[in-house]
């Protein structure tokens, strides 16, 4: 005994983890001893738990031995030992075999044991039971659920919930008991609070009603298929016998949110309920109600405002976590509807200096999102004041927000740039500097007026830049943007300084950047560049010499255009496709190497297209969560989308090119998205894709035969355009045989008139159907089948099919410049909100929204600015003004384009 005591103290003094094998041996010894020494066993159990909770584990065999020696402790009736035994059983049951053996001991405790460990016994029971043995415990569980002791009832409800995945049918039989528990009043046995002498300032409650939370959780999972039952439950729990537990209310709010999500028709019925919880004594209820209300799309601005007002109050409570939660919800709301948050601006600004950095960062980014052209300058100033106090990680988030903001308010680029310039001078790691450089790059790309001052900032930066990678990127940008400025020589000096002072990687990119300036056509510049390049020929590094030699060679050739192709190409290859093709080429067998890799098969992207994609991505991929890796996933997604689009286009081109008649039409200019022409559940599902060629329109009808016993022969489409002089049918490629559950495509080709011609095609599917033998899937010999027709929906060709989205830095400028204005006025009847029509217009016109005009800030009127390029290469700019009137929505469309026909047909065919 004395040695044990000694050991115990040794352990405690050093605080070191007890030895695993010693504990194991001691446990076996003590647990199997007779009589059992309760105090010593409890001490050993706590050591065992300490090992487990610190990450140690026992192999299954040892764990099983331990498990059974622990079950010996059931002989001793000390309740405090028994309670810890149950904790140990819970921990070990997951890793031991034959845990079922203790079931009867546990059940005996539940029925006749002491009150204090009864709940522990019930919870341990849920670990040793499974789907086949649960029946034995049915009666006990039912009785426990309706027990008047709150702890027993909760334990039974939680255990039933744990058992749901393996025995839903059995647990379902306890629905009535569960239902009864929710509204029943249960309490704690009074002697429970005798366990300790002193409870501090805590109140000793009669009941905390937590069983309502557990019962509600269980009940929802038993009833979630039955909407009527759920509605009844909600009604009952909100009016007749309202829930008393905050956790339960939070849970109920989530269920209501889920129901509305599935059936938006119930929004207005259930809203008053949600709103009633916006004023509650518990902040978690208020937060949950506000969060749910703000995530529901079908509510009015007024209703959202109620939730925002609640959050506004919560922004200034002393509890950090509550402020955090409130500002986080507001931040999320600000992403979609920044204008709604403006009422909280005063509170948000006071949070900028919050002691919790996450709160201050959320406050700033939210403010930046709500920023409008009036307060942006002031905001930027406020932020600059506190940039010094925060860590790199938060600085990056702030810079990201500034970047988004500068794209939103191009006219404010000056204050943004000076802010970025200031922070660029600060100390910081690579990722911080990188974020700033990215932001400046974006401003240069999308706000052309800022170019010179931004480039100057960058020039200063590379004078003293410790990061090679950043220096290289800046040099590349100077090479592409520098020559476009009125005073290019300025940059040449900065670039050449790099050649003198930097490492070889930076030097070689400086060489390429320099040579781009020689392409300007200015003799004196070209001459000095050549001199500088000649000096580079004696560089110590191979790469630098090679690049200098190549550039000199190209520059000295007569044909400056050819040099341009190599030194400053205007088109880029689509990199994801290039990568994929190259990988395919390399992984092929030897034969593929006999033909050289065909670079011309890779689609190219012009600079403008690339910019349009990038702009879309940059403005869409908003900072969703602070410093969470989830953000990166999101960016990957949007990249994937572009990649998928490219891939799809490529796939279409290949498919179409394999049909000789269509191959003769030349290159595929544009393919539309897939349009459904039938319901998804019909026997024959038809979808269509419109392919536009130089002079032709090819409609690809994909027909899917969903039947298992019918084969279709000679499937064709009778496609009747409304304007027969515009679209003249040339040929149809029908499907000869469409097997059951197969899909194939019909191509219908039309020659098309020049310009942007809309049209409506009335389609009828005709075919000969034959019954097939389900075994062989072949029709009976000699079955001639019978011809049939099938009416499918009309297919519309809209101006959007002829336009690709494009980006332009200064929309107003382009708008003023473009000729051929056309306008039209529409009265929209089927539209319910401006938001809806705006997103519809962007899609149907297939143009890019400019100046953030896709964000609707008022419910009564809105101006949408769109830009794109027609397939013929003409620029198209559109300004659409929407206003709500008593009779619905009025829409005025103004279109300007290089091409008169384009303007006219877009204006006249918007809807």
């Amino acid at each position, binding site marked *: 005994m004395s040695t044990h005591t000694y050991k115990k103290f040794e352990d405690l003094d050093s605080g070191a983890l007890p030895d695993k094998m010693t504990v194991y041996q001691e446990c076996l010894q003590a647990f199997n001893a007779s009589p059992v020494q309760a105090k010593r066993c409890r001490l050993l159990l706590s050591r065992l738990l300490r090992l487990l909770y610190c*990450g140690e584990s026992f192999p299954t065999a040892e764990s099983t031995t331990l498990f059974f020696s622990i079950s010996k402790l059931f002989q001793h009736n000390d309740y405090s030992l028994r309670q810890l035994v149950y*904790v140990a059983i819970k921990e070990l049951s997951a890793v031991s075999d034959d845990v079922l053996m203790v079931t009867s001991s546990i059940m005996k405790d539940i029925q006749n044991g002491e009150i204090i460990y009864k709940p522990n016994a019930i919870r341990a029971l849920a670990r040793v039971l499974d789907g086949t043995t649960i029946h034995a415990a049915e009666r006990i569980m039912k009785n426990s659920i309706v027990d008047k002791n709150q702890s027993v009832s909760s334990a039974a409800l939680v255990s039933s919930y744990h058992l749901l995945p393996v025995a839903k049918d059995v647990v379902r039989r306890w629905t009535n008991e569960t239902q009864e528990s929710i509204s029943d009043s249960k309490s704690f046995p009074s002697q429970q609070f005798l366990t300790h002498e002193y409870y501090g300032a805590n109140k000793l*409650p009669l009941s905390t009603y937590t069983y309502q939370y557990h019962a509600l959780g269980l009940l929802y999972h038993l009833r979630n298929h039955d909407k009527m039952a759920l509605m009844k439950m909600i009604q009952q729990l909100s009016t007749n016998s309202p829930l008393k537990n905050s956790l339960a209310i939070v849970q109920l709010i989530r269920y209501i949110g889920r129901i509305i999500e599935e059936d938006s028709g119930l929004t207005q019925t259930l809203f008053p309920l949600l709103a009633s919880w916006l004023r509650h004594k518990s902040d978690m209820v208020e937060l949950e109600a506000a969060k*749910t209300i703000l995530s529901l799309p079908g509510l009015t601005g007024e209703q959202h405002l109620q939730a925002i007002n609640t959050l506004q109050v919560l922004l200034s409570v002393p509890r950090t*976590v509550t402020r955090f939660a409130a500002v986080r919800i507001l931040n999320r709301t600000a992403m979609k509807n920044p204008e709604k948050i403006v009422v909280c601006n005063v509170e948000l600004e006071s949070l900028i200096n919050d002691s919790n950095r996450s709160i201050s960062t959320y406050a700033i980014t939210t403010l930046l999102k709500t920023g409008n052209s009036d307060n942006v300058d002031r905001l930027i100033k406020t932020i600059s004041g506190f940039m010094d106090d925060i860590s790199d990680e938060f600085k990056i988030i702030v810079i990201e927000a500034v970047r988004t903001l500068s794209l939103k308010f191009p006219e404010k680029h000056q204050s943004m740039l000076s802010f970025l310039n200031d922070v660029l001078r600060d100390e910081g790691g690579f990722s911080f500097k990188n974020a700033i450089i990215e932001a400046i790059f974006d401003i240069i790309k999308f706000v052309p007026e800022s170019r010179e001052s931004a480039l100057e900032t960058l020039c200063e930066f590379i004078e003293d830049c410790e990061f090679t990678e950043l220096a290289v990127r800046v040099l590349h940008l100077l090479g592409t943007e520098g020559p476009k400025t009125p005073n290019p020589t300025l940059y040449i000096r900065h670039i050449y300084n790099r050649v003198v002072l930097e490492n070889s990687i930076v030097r070689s990119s400086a060489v390429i950047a320099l040579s781009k300036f020689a392409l300007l056509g200015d003799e004196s510049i070209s001459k000095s560049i050549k001199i500088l390049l000649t000096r580079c020929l004696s560089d110590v590094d191979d790469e630098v010499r090679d690049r200098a030699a190549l550039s000199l060679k190209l520059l000295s050739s007569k044909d400056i255009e050819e040099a341009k192709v190599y030194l400053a190409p205007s088109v880029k290859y689509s990199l994801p496709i290039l990568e994929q093709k190259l990988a395919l080429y390399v992984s092929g067998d030897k034969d593929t190497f006999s033909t050289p890799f065909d670079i011309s098969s890779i689609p190219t992207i012009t600079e403008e297209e690339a910019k349009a994609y990038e702009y879309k991505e940059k403005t869409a991929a908003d900072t969703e969560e602070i410093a969470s890796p989830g953000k990166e996933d999101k960016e990957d997604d949007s990249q994937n989308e572009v990649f998928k689009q490219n891939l799809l286009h490529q796939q279409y081109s290949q498919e179409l090119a394999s049909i000789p008649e269509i191959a003769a039409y030349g290159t595929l200019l544009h393919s539309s998205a897939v349009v459904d022409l039938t319901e998804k559940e019909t026997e024959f599902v038809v979808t269509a894709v419109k392919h536009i060629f130089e002079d032709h329109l090819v409609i690809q009808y994909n027909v899917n035969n969903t039947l298992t016993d019918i084969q279709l022969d000679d499937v064709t489409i009778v496609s009747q355009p409304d304007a027969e002089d515009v679209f003249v049918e040339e040929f149809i490629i029908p499907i000869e045989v469409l097997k059951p559950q197969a899909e194939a495509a019909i191509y219908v080709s039309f020659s098309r008139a020049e310009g942007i011609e809309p049209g409506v095609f009335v389609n009828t599917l005709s075919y000969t159907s034959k019954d097939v033998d389900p075994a062989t899937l072949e029709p009976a010999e000699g079955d001639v089948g019978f011809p049939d027709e099938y009416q499918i929906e009309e297919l519309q060709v809209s101006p959007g099919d002829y336009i690709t989205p494009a980006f332009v830095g200064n929309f107003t400028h382009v708008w003023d410049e473009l000729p051929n204005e056309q306008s039209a006025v529409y009265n929209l009847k089927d539209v319910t909100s401006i938001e809806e029509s705006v997103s519809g217009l962007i899609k149907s016109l297939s143009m890019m929204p400019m100046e953030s005009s896709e964000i609707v800030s008022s419910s009564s009127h809105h101006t949408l600015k769109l830009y794109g390029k027609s397939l013929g290469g003409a620029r198209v700019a559109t300004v659409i003004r929407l206003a709500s009137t008593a009779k619905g929505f009025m829409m005025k469309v103004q279109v300007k384009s290089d091409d008169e026909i384009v303007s006219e047909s877009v204006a006249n065919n918007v809807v």
Partner: protein
Amino acid sequence: MPANISLYTVNSIIFLDNDGKRLLAKYYKPPHGEADPDSLAGQDKKQATFEANLFQKTQKVNGDIILFENQIVVYKEYSDVIIYLTGGLNENEALLYTTLQGLIGALDIVLKSSIDKKSIQENYDMVSLAVDETADDGIILETDPAVIASRVTKAPTDDVNIKIDLSEKGLFNAFQFAKSKVSERLQQGF
């Protein structure tokens, strides 16, 4: 972001000391059925890095809450212990914090207002019970500190039953016990 409609709310409860070393860590997953693929339960290596990084972020920063590796982490720092409770990104922050406060309040009672490394190690049995009474494999059992504490039994006083119960009933029991023992011996005939 869909709200969590299951009752599984708490991802883990972790106690670290002032060097970032683990005192107690419970990573939860449902006892039956599928675990969330992102769950750290059963992933010893990932748990260790998670704890190390989390400790670095939160030590000496009395922020109460932080978003960390796609989880909400609420925490409370004491002189040589930090107690963390984590939940999913869409969880209700106030709800998690109330749960943490429930646990901490209960520890305050059972450890007699001294939440520190030494008393946690010395009273590991009661600390384990308090954690077990707060959350059951991720389902919150109770958030009221007094209730959680009242369910935590103290260790048995002593193994050798020398406690003399001087009440009438106690004396009677002692007498009964002696009587039965004596008669037992007598029957065995020594």
